[in-house]
């Protein structure tokens, strides 16, 4: 399809989506709900998408996508409310926003800060969307050359890189989490020979682990336990009067916006890592390139704009590998992949053939979701601020019940609940011991793909593994995997650091000396 054809499909999708009043209501409702989810302590974008998925079983695909993307975009943006007004980020994605947002609110400019955040988030999502529509078809076309060799290595690479980048402690823990996910994915009858593996003669395990209870268990239960165990509660939010879009400030910070959007898209496209890292990297870049870095940490609008643009641009970036390769780019995208699977959509290289207009349609929905977020943010922010006063002890038990009914509703199977609880408890302990959960979940999702393609590839070559090293793309993936692992060896890391130190001479600047004294409280949610 040419560029004009794509634009035609894009605008056609927008018109047909908006023609149904039910879609409009769901769009604005999901966006508002998402903002509330992001703003409330303990609730995350991933959890929001997970719980909303359970309500979209009976909806047509496009309506379900409107609800899920509306929630996703709204929740990533909503985390900035407590960050700005209470100095406690609602989600990890907004942690960097507190650095500049809270000082602005302390000066009585909370409304201005929220206005900037809202507009920057809208622009960020829109730029992410443009990148999605431009880059995704190219990647999808390239991915059409992939065979079993590449698919196996791609799944392996996805797990390896997400394990490497999401691990807060030792990198090896991220890899172990990914392998645990792969191990869980082997439960059930294997797809090639239908042989029962680790089913312990339980017929309920024959079909393997359902994705939704695993996702809900892994993300919801640890969160419920953590929030109630630590009696998490936000302070009294700063007052907000009017919220203005601040177009002049936005135009003044245009270069920060463009750079942050690119950072957001780039980071979003890397499997497993998401909005939180994009926010911090972009904040750091804004500070390092600023002519007045000493103003950072004291309410500098460019810092706030950069962070919010990047974390929302990340959404479009995260959708690129999700739609074209079937590998989710961020934790909420993992849940989105589960939702798409439930609705019978197989994302990956064949998406352009199976559903030719699908990527354009998703892009159109993303634009609508960001527009709904902007309108909700501008008009309903004072109402959202009220939500910040809701006690966690009242809504966390409701989340627990929603998790239970959500896990059950798919397949009407009580066994899913029996599965959700132990997985949730295991995920809780793993997070307590600093194992990241995203690689585990990605492992569960990509495990069948890795298993099946490895055996198919070896079947084609009759057990000969050399095609893994002789096919160009396959070789590139092998090299990427090896480099990822080798780069973590302590001796290599030390050598690399020495090399960098020699190449880059440190220049002490004023910025280095003016490290902000006040740091925001840690985000109430460890993952998004």
């Amino acid at each position, binding site marked *: 399809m040419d560029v004009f054809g794509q634009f035609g499909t894009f605008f056609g999708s927008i018109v047909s989506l908006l023609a149904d009043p039910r879609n409009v209501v769901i769009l604005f409702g999901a966006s508002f709900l998402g903002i509330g989810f992001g703003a409330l302590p303990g609730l995350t974008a991933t959890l929001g998408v997970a719980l909303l998925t359970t309500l979209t079983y009976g909806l047509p695909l496009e309506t379900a996508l409107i609800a899920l993307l509306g929630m996703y975009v709204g929740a990533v943006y909503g985390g900035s409310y407590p960050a700005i007004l209470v100095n406690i980020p609602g989600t990890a994605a907004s942690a960097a926003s507190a650095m500049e947002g809270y000082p602005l609110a302390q000066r009585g400019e909370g409304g201005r800060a929220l206005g900037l955040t809202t507009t920057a988030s809208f622009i960020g999502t829109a730029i992410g969307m443009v990148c999605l529509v431009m880059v995704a078809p190219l990647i999808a076309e390239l991915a059409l050359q992939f065979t079993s060799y590449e698919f196996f290595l791609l799944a392996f690479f996805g797990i390896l890189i997400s394990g490497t980048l999401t691990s807060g402690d030792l990198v090896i823990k991220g890899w172990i989490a990914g392998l645990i996910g792969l*191990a869980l994915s082997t439960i059930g009858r294997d797809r090639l020979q239908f042989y029962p593996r680790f089913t312990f003669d339980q017929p309920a395990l024959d079909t393997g682990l359902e994705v939704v209870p695993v996702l809900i268990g892994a993300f919801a239960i640890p969160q419920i336990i953590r929030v109630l165990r630590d009696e998490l509660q936000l302070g009294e939010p700063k007052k907000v009067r009017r919220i203005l879009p601040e177009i002049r400030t936005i135009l003044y910070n245009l270069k920060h916006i463009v750079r942050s959007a690119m950072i957001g898209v780039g980071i979003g496209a890397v499997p497993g890592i998401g909005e939180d890292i994009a926010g911090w990297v972009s904040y750091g870049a804004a500070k390092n390139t600023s002519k007045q870095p000493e103003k950072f940490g004291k309410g500098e609008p460019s810092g706030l704009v950069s962070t919010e643009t990047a974390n929302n641009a990340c959404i479009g970036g995260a959708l690129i590998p999700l739609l074209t390769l079937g590998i989710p780019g961020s934790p909420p995208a993992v849940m989105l992949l589960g939702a798409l699977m439930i609705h019978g959509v197989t994302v990956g290289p064949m998406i352009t053939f199976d559903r030719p207009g699908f990527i354009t349609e998703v892009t159109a929905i993303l634009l609508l979701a960001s527009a709904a977020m902007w309108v909700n943010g501008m008009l309903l922010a004072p109402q959202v601020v009220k939500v910040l006063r809701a006690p966690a002890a*009242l809504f966390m038990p409701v989340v627990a019940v929603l998790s*239970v009914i959500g896990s*059950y509703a798919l397949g009407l199977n009580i066994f899913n609940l*029996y599965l959700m*609880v132990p997985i949730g408890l295991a995920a809780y302990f793993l997070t307590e*011991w600093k194992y990241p959960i995203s690689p585990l979940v990605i492992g569960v999702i990509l495990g069948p793909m890795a298993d099946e393609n*490895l*055996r198919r590839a070896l079947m084609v070559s*009759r057990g000969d593994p050399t095609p893994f090293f002789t096919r160009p793309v396959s070789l590139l993936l092998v090299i990427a995997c090896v480099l990822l692992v080798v780069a973590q060896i302590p001796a290599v890391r030390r050598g690399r650091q020495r090399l960098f130190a020699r190449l880059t001479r440190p220049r002490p600047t004023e910025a280095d000396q003016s490290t902000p004294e006040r740091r925001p409280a840690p985000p109430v949610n460890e993952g998004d």
Partner: protein
Amino acid sequence: MDRERLRRTDLWTGLGLAALAVAMLIGASRFPISASYGGVQNVWYVSPALFPLIVGFGILALSMVLVVTAARSLGRDGLRQALSLPKADFAPRQRRFAMIVAAIIGFVFAMVPAVDFFLATALFLLVFMAAFHLPDGTGLLPNLTTYLVLVGLTIAWRATGLGEVPGLEYVLDVLILIGIAAALWVNWRTTAGDPLSRKRLRHVLWMVAVTPTVLCILFRYGLLVPLPHEGIVINLMEAARYAMRG
């Protein structure tokens, strides 16, 4: 968690994971590798054992690296300390953790499969919210006790199999209804004389009334999802719906 404590935990989790990996390898080695299965002669590269064996070896290798890293980081003294038995921790944080886990396990494994979903949810929300929303943790112990007694009662009732006898289907629901009334009474007494506690209890009661009603209507009639166990209340709702339709 401080770094040294984390490394001690790493040592134990590494050993635990290694044990699981060995179990996985033993299990996978029993899958057909080159033997025939379903009339098809297997070869190693299409065997259902191939992938689990690779994953099992991967976990084993990485967990051993984790154990070695943790042991190196701890040193000899730290290692000795790590191998000694940890002291039991009954801090309030741990008590809250135990309460949350007990409530969730009781709800999922005992209540949801056997009790009317509306009643099971109402009871769960009442004890859970009152336990954590009432000030100074005053609601924690009475609510946990009430809930665990009712969970025990449910398990005992299910074990007798009397719920399957015609005419006795609703007995457990009635018992849980009485349990809800008891939990209400316990919380009402706990909050007596304290206006703040009473105010918070009223918030809890609102949520307990609204949430199960909305959820049951939404899932049962909006999404047409049959609820896990439909007992006295859901059947009453169903009867009311048919009565309204005429």
